[in-house]
């Protein structure tokens, strides 16, 4: 009996590995097809489907303490990277990079829970010489109070090889604590966690995202059931029929 259970478990494990491998392969193929199908910027350096770890063991890069650029709405910005109260995650994204699209969309859906509060997220597109502000604005629309800055200068300052690309800047001296590329915000969180040497950050983020998904599910179910905002059933009701907080 025991050996049967062990055999079954082994078979399940093998099958699981096969499924994971197939899924991984399919995802890679899909990504390649997507990149090939992107007609507008065939030359840009797109991200591989696996995350590149940060520069562990290297001496941190220092010296970039601020970020000068403009928002898609035309606002001029000089953001301080150091000294500040939080580390800054610079997400170098463009409008044309196919792999960036999922990152933009996920931000729209689930921000602010994708990034822990200890880290300030700044999305950096290229400057007006390389990007259309209206296209950047269209992608940035709906992601709330995340900074979106157009700055070719920042791309040069941080030697960004392509998009998507992420740089975690330390709050005290502007050190580059880690950098690399990622396809999903989960991967980015891993990058942050490793770079900051703080697994709790990544764990908290995962927890936070689970909560958020649950909240969105509740929203969806309520709406599907016809319970809209303001519905009396959402509120406790007293004897005299008046709602009470």
């Amino acid at each position: 009996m025991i050996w049967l259970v062990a055999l079954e478990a082994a078979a399940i494990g093998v099958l699981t590995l096969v499924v994971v491998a197939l899924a991984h392969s399919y995802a890679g193929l899909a990504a390649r097809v997507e990149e090939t199908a992107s007609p507008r910027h065939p030359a840009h350096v797109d991200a591989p489907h696996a995350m590149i770890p940060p520069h562990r063991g290297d001496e941190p890069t220092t010296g970039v303490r601020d970020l000068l650029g403009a928002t898609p709405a035309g606002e001029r910005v000089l953001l301080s990277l150091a000294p500040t109260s939080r580390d800054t995650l610079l997400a170098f994204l463009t409008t044309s990079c196919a792999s960036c699209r999922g990152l933009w969309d996920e931000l729209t859906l689930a921000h602010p829970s994708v990034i822990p509060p200890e880290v300030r997220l700044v999305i950096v597109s290229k400057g007006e010489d390389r990007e259309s502000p209206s296209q950047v604005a269209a992608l940035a629309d709906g992601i709330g109070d995340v900074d979106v800055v157009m700055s070719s200068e920042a791309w040069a300052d941080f030697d960004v090889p392509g998009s998507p690309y992420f740089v975690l800047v330390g709050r005290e001296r502007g050190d580059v604590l880690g950098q690399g590329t990622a396809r999903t915000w989960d991967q980015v969180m891993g990058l942050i966690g490793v770079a900051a040497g703080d697994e709790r950050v990544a764990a908290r983020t995962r927890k936070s995202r689970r909560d958020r998904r649950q909240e969105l599910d509740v929203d969806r179910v309520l709406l599907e059931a016809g319970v809209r905002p303001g519905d009396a059933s959402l509120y406790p009701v007293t004897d005299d029929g008046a709602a009470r907080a």
Partner: protein
Amino acid sequence: MRTFDTAGIVVPVPPGWEARGVVPPAPAARLPDGSVAYPYVHLANVALPPGRAPYGGGVVEHLGPEGVLLALLEFAPGSARTALFTSHDAPRRLRPTEFSGAQLQRTLRGQLGLQRFFQLGGRALCCYVVMGGPPALRHALGDVNRVLTGLRVHEVVTSR
């Protein structure tokens, strides 16, 4: 210190401070409702989020006791000829006693504020400073005065 230029309103930015300047799409361009927006610049020793109101709404709520917001706002050029903007003395060296808990657009507990209308280079301006609390007044007023001492305003670039 790095300098920051918003439509000819030029300020030095102390280390660790942020600056954001809003410039209308075209100088003195009319908005759809017929009103006219003019440039303004925000400086703070905290992160300046997008979506701030000209007098610091969206920032002042998160200043903390050591946080500072300094706003410089421009008005219609004709305003420079009025009593409200009659002062040619731009505020350069503010004293702690000039701040009060009432001089605020939003009287948030513990915060201290100051508002001055003046003209510089023929342009009508308002300087509005919010200190998150007494610690900010003690530690950051020097930076505020360095910004104001370095403030330069180019001759009128907007016209109506």
